[in-house]
């Protein structure tokens, strides 16, 4: 079989579509479903721009075949603040702290950090730097991204308290 029909949940909505088996998940999200928030930089796992959540865990969408997401649940950057609701605290903090400039790396930063802050709600700056060590940003600079993340972590902790 060189193409398959797959069913999966993306950002809470069920989708069914045909995909060539050699298409990776990022191309499926962007090309087949039209969700272009997931970006592609290197397509070999190094830059982190394509990072999405698969059943809640951060993965490289360029290193997973679309067929491998059959029956699974995917969250992309479009799903962080559903239905045009208020921004996710990470997105709000990125806006407020100059956490993005061109925005190319941002979707991957946000998905990676969304998972990270779930596991580590009260991180040190150093831990944040390690968490995004697999996400390359070529223009903003990491200091403001780290500052935004620290602020988002605070906001998330306060919202929970």
């Amino acid at each position: 079989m060189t193409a398959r029909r797959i069913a999966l949940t993306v950002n809470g909505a069920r989708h069914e579509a045909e995909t060539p088996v050699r298409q990776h998940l990022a191309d499926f999200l962007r090309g087949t479903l039209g969700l272009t928030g997931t970006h592609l930089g290197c397509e070999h796992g190094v830059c982190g721009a394509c990072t999405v959540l698969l059943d809640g865990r951060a993965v490289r969408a360029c290193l997973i075949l679309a067929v491998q997401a059959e029956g699974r649940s995917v969250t992309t950057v479009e799903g962080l603040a559903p239905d045009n609701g208020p921004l996710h605290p990470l997105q709000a903090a990125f806006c407020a702290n100059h956490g993005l400039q061109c925005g190319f790396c941002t979707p991957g930063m946000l998905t990676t950090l969304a998972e990270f802050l779930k596991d580590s709600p009260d991180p040190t700056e150093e831990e944040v730097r390690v968490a995004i060590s697999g996400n390359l940003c070529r223009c903003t600079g990491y200091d403001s991204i780290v500052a935004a993340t620290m602020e988002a972590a605070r906001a998330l902790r306060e919202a929970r308290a």
Partner: protein
Amino acid sequence: MKPAPFRYHAPRTEAEALSLLAELAPEEGRVIAGGQSLVPAMALRVARPSHLVDINNVAGFDRLAVEDGWLRVGPLVRHAALGEGAVPGPLGRLLEVVRGQIAHLPIRTRGTVCGSLANADPASEWCLLAATLGARFHVRSLRGERVIEADAFFGGFMTTALAPDEILVELRLPVLSDAAHTGFHEFSRRAGDFAQAAALAVLELREGVIAAPRLGLGAVEDRPRRLLEAEALLAGRAPSEALFREAATTARAGLVPVDEDPYRLDLAETVIRRALSAAAGMPAP
């Protein structure tokens, strides 16, 4: 779409996976586990399998258990799962340190331990660990099961004793005694990169002297291996910076590095000394 065309199979049982592989291996059929090495290799067309046998849905392949002194790791245990939660004591603490050096979190959630071993990159941390601790490799095909010892598993640069129709169904790591001290040190230029040199030392200290030393080196030669001459030199001696320097010099003399760069041999000496110092609880040289 970057990979060359292939056909895709998603077996749900081990028996089905083994028979698919028996049928398809002669036509360049390959297992895909985490895909974190194979998918990039296919994108670069360095690998062009005609069939992929995806083992991600095989029931039971995610098993991870301690039994009879061995930590048993199934083919779907991801890098992220192999830490202190898997086994208590010195082995768990060592796994925790080692896994933190492998790529980045979104790759560790997907890549598998057995996939790293089957891939046999000379710089792979799990390969170094398996070689140093004396792991056992349980492999299966329709032809039956066999057990391969660590010193026979790695055959050279990205080469193993696995036949094309065989699946590595379990890695067994010996659980370390509570008296074991471990030290791991790796050098790479950027966080998450493959190591340029990495060393692992495991030893006990009995009445002030080193007992049962194991010293392994990765990323320098075409495969990771124990440094037996240096181990012999360490046994029965009291740890000191001078002793560790001597062990590193001895080890260096016997190395056949992957390139001619003397820098790599200098790095080898440095990581060996740092791994040994960490194991002995001494400050890093």
